[in-house]
């Protein structure tokens, strides 16, 4: 029967594949096997089948693309279970067949496809995103960057660790790769739920399994372990300390002592790093030369990361030195491009590091690419619910762009006040915004400036703006007194002196003096091409902009609903939170956590509905309970409160918290200090932030 189907395939390959995937193909008992195995045996890897495999390659890619393009129709026809199953089958077939065109395409678009595939996870064996990773792991190029596998290893789900280890053992298993595999185990188990002793036991079991899988003498593996531990010197955790301690106790003194010695690969020394930092800061050193030195240093740190899996020094040096470098003008276009590439690489190692995101935004600001800067800032605001700096920067950018987005800027600045009360830059920006907004807001602006000045005795910014506002409101004498007073304290501050001079001269101030001005930048001709990582950031940023507009703009609502109908988890979350077109919001895909939790919150879900979320998303357990507690505005569920309190206590005792865990701890503390009226409001705002940050996974 399979031969008859193949005859049809030779004529109409795409139809034949569509028929096979839908079960319509008449292949008799072969259908008792799964599609991957049917295809594997129908198209073996051999010269005589090369033409057919070529046709198959195109047809499979077409089938996958159609499944993506016709998502709403297929999901409604098949349901998520079957839709996800068919995608998994296609990826498993490609794992067996290794068809080059499909693989090339999937590599190119993987970041965008993950957005489609990730929310479709139903169970460990039905996780299309995981199967796509497995495929890419199996067909790695020589010298491929190990960062995706090290990143996957950090996922607490064991099947992700399995794929990570597979990715690290290919294309060939060298000793360096074995070191990375052990480092991957370290990364996995130091983040695993459970106490340290339990996780160390599991680490030892997994290490033993690795030894069994790749048998070598005990000295070899002792050396691998020693090297892996010593390579992680940038990020010593309680877990790694316990491992070293156990090595001591178990008598493996040699290994544990050696683990304290320097790594086999030389990361630039502290002195080298300080030397380059001095060069960067020195105005007598040409900026291009300083940038060359910086790039060389960061690349050396990156090479260390590639071989050890420890990204600490790479990311830290990139950001710390990069921050200083971007304060100087004269960095060339090629150097800017190289820094951008390194930033993207750093994000693959540490996607949730706010310093990298800040540097990226600064890099775009440096070259005047405000659009790109906005995308990055919006994503930074989303990922880091407590980051004040990115909110202020985004607000400044929006205020420069157009009056129509001032409402969004104001929202961001007011948000900072709730995250970080008394935050001087945000308060000053808010007062400027209010001045520009109109006369009826000037009283509030003045009030903010006065209270900010009172809070920040050593800061001139709020006082200068207050001085300008006093002139604007015909209180020149008071303004003069204020400005003269601060000019004595800050005698070298050119901004104060310039404003004082204008006031003394009798100049008038208008609202133009309070507007954001575009910062002049040196023209740097960088490439217009948008790298794939930034494309994803752009997509999310655009959704965020639409969300901001959706309450007043029908087109923005329609676009969000359209994206949600294609299973976009972030768009779906926005629709659910805004209750757009309720109750006709598309059904969330099975693994869109934030979308589902938003639905629970908005529909006042029962306890059993919350429990269902809890059991379906084991990796989100703490966050789900916290979101549940945040949604309990009347604080009726005492058991839940006790449970969350225990969770916060446990997290507070831990040294290595994720950004969400930090947010949980600080939000709990903040809310506990409020009275009941404020609590309800703050809880809702924080529920949004928590869900917003988790609505789309941060992995590049």
């Amino acid at each position, binding site marked *: *029967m*399979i*031969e*008859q189907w193949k005859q049809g395939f030779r004529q109409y390959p795409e139809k034949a594949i569509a*028929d096979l995937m*839908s*079960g*319509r*193909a*008449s292949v*008799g*008992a*072969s*259908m*008792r*096997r*799964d599609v*991957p*195995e049917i295809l*594997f*045996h*129908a198209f*073996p890897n051999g010269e005589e089948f090369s033409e057919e495999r070529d046709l198959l390659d195109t047809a499979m890619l077409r089938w996958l693309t159609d499944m993506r393009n016709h998502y709403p129709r297929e999901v409604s026809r*098949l*349901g998520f*279970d*079957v839709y996800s*199953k*068919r995608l998994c089958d296609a990826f*498993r077939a490609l*794992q*067996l067949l290794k068809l080059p065109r499909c693989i090339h395409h999937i590599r190119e678009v993987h970041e965008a496809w993950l957005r489609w595939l990730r929310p479709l996870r*139903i*169970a*460990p*064996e*039905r996780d299309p995103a995981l199967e796509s990773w*497995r495929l890419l792991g*199996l067909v790695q190029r020589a010298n491929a960057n190990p960062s995706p596998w090290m990143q996957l290893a950090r996922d607490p789900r*064991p*099947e992700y660790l*399995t794929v990570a280890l*597979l990715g690290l*053992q*290919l294309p060939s298993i060298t000793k360096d790769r074995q070191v990375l595999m052990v480092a991957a185990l370290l990364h996995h188990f130091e983040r695993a739920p459970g106490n340290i002793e339990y996780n160390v036991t599991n680490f030892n*079991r*997994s290490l*033993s*399994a*690795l*030894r*069994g*899988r790749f*048998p070598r003498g005990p000295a070899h593996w002792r050396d691998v372990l020693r090297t892996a531990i010593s390579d992680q010197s940038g990020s010593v955790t309680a877990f790694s300390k316990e491992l070293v301690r156990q090595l001591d106790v178990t008598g493996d003194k040699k290994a544990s002592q050696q683990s304290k010695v320097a790594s086999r690969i030389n990361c630039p020394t502290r002195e080298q790093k300080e030397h380059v930092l001095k060069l960067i800061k020195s105005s007598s050193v040409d900026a291009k030369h300083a940038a060359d030195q910086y790039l060389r240093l960061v690349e050396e740190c990156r090479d260390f990361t590639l071989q050890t899996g420890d990204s600490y020094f790479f990311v830290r040096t990139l950001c710390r030195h990069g921050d200083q470098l971007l304060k100087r003008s004269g960095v060339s276009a090629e150097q800017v491009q190289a820094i951008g590439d390194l930033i993207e690489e750093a994000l693959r190692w540490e996607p949730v590091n706010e310093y990298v995101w800040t540097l990226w935004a600064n890099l775009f600001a440096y070259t005047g690419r405000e659009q790109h800067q906005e995308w990055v800032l919006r994503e930074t605001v989303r990922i880091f619910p407590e980051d004040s700096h990115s909110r202020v920067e985004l607000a400044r950018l929006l205020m420069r762009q157009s009056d129509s987005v001032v409402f969004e800027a104001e929202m961001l600045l007011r948000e900072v006040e709730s995250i970080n009360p008394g935050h001087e830059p945000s308060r000053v920006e808010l007062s400027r915004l209010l001045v520009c907004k109109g006369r009826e807001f000037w009283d509030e602006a003045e009030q903010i400036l006065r209270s900010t000045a009172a809070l920040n005795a050593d800061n001139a910014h709020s006082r200068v703006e207050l001085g300008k506002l006093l002139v604007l409101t015909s209180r020149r004498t008071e303004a003069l007194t204020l400005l003269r007073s601060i000019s004595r304290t800050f005698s070298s501050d050119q901004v104060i002196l310039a404003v004082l001079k204008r006031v003394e001269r009798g100049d008038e101030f208008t609202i133009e003096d309070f507007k954001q001005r575009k910062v002049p930048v040196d023209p740097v001709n960088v490439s217009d091409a948008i790298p794939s990582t930034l494309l994803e950031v752009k997509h999310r940023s655009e959704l965020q902009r639409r969300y901001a507009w959706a309450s007043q703009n029908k087109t923005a609502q329609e676009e969000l609903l359209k994206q949600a109908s294609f299973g976009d988890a972030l768009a779906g979350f926005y629709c659910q939170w805004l209750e757009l077109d309720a109750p006709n919001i598309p059904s969330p895909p099975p693994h869109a956590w934030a979308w589902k939790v938003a639905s629970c919150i908005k529909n006042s879900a029962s306890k059993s509905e919350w429990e269902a979320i809890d059991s*379906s998303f084991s990796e989100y357990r703490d966050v789900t309970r916290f979101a549940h507690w945040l949604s309990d505005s009347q604080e009726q569920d005492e058991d839940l409160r006790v449970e969350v309190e225990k969770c916060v206590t446990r997290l507070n005792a831990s040294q290595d918290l994720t950004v969400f865990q930090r947010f949980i701890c600080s939000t709990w503390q903040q809310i506990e200090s409020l009275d009941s009226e404020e609590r309800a409001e703050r809880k809702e705002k924080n529920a949004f932030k928590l869900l917003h940050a988790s609505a789309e996974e941060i992995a590049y």
Partner: protein
Amino acid sequence: MLESLLPFLDRTSRSPCAIKSAVADNCRFEERTSQKRWQNFADCLPEMNHGDLTYEDWLEGSFLYTQKYLTVPSVSVPEALLEVNSSAWLKDPAPGQTLVRLEALEWPLSSLWNMSLDEFMALNDAPERNQDARRALSACFDDWNRARDNRPLFAAFLDEVEDEVENEDWSHLLRDRLGLGHYAPGKGQKIPVVLMRYDLQDVIETQTRKGLAASCALPTALDGGMHEYFFPVPEQNPFGATLHLDPRYADLLTAEIIHCRIDYQPRHVWKFGWIEKDHFLSMVDQRDRDAKLREARDLHLFQLRIDSKRDSFAEEMVGRK
């Protein structure tokens, strides 16, 4: 059976293609499947008058049904073990019995473990004292279990197939005896297989642990029986009966059951092997194949009627008009 499906099945059972007839027969002669299950099946067919269905529509619906209700994810329960199939449940299975099941290993070896069958066998053969190797093997099984869905598993009773299993050519003999006609690798190819052996007790314990309503059932046409090497049995038969792929042994009916998925463990592994030969009914020439298939099914039916004392059960294919 739903009345609305009969015209299509009657028409298809008269098809000149023996495979199509066989599929239709499997449904026509099915006696254990509840109306509710047939309704679930019918709901997966294209939305049209059932009398106008084509064979391809039927296949598509059947495949969708299989994926919705049978090859379910590990967080779901297959329909065969739900109340809706209670008419086919195996009541009070005796826990002392030993089951065997053949598993193909192409995907696990290639994509999950990235090793050859020889490497996997070496790992399996490592002595108990080699703790590292045992842990590696155990990790392989953990990975495999996590990568398997919750479809019910077909299995046979060891005491019935001991002769085949003991034979040097066990993989082919067992394949033929259990009617696993889909393991026909084609010219120049081979399928790595492992024979799993476990006690029914393991199955019952899994049922208890997972709180399932049933542990075992008798296979029906809807449990992966929509193909030419399946044949339903009369309602009163205690087990399913496999169709021997070699018509010379058509009178050799072997009891088969389906049971809930169990997690495999290294101790369940019995033998490794390859299936590299096609079977008697897998030839390419359609006329030959159809003739042989009809003969094999009729011989099987003959024996089935004797065993079940139901002379009028089902209908022969040869001579059908």
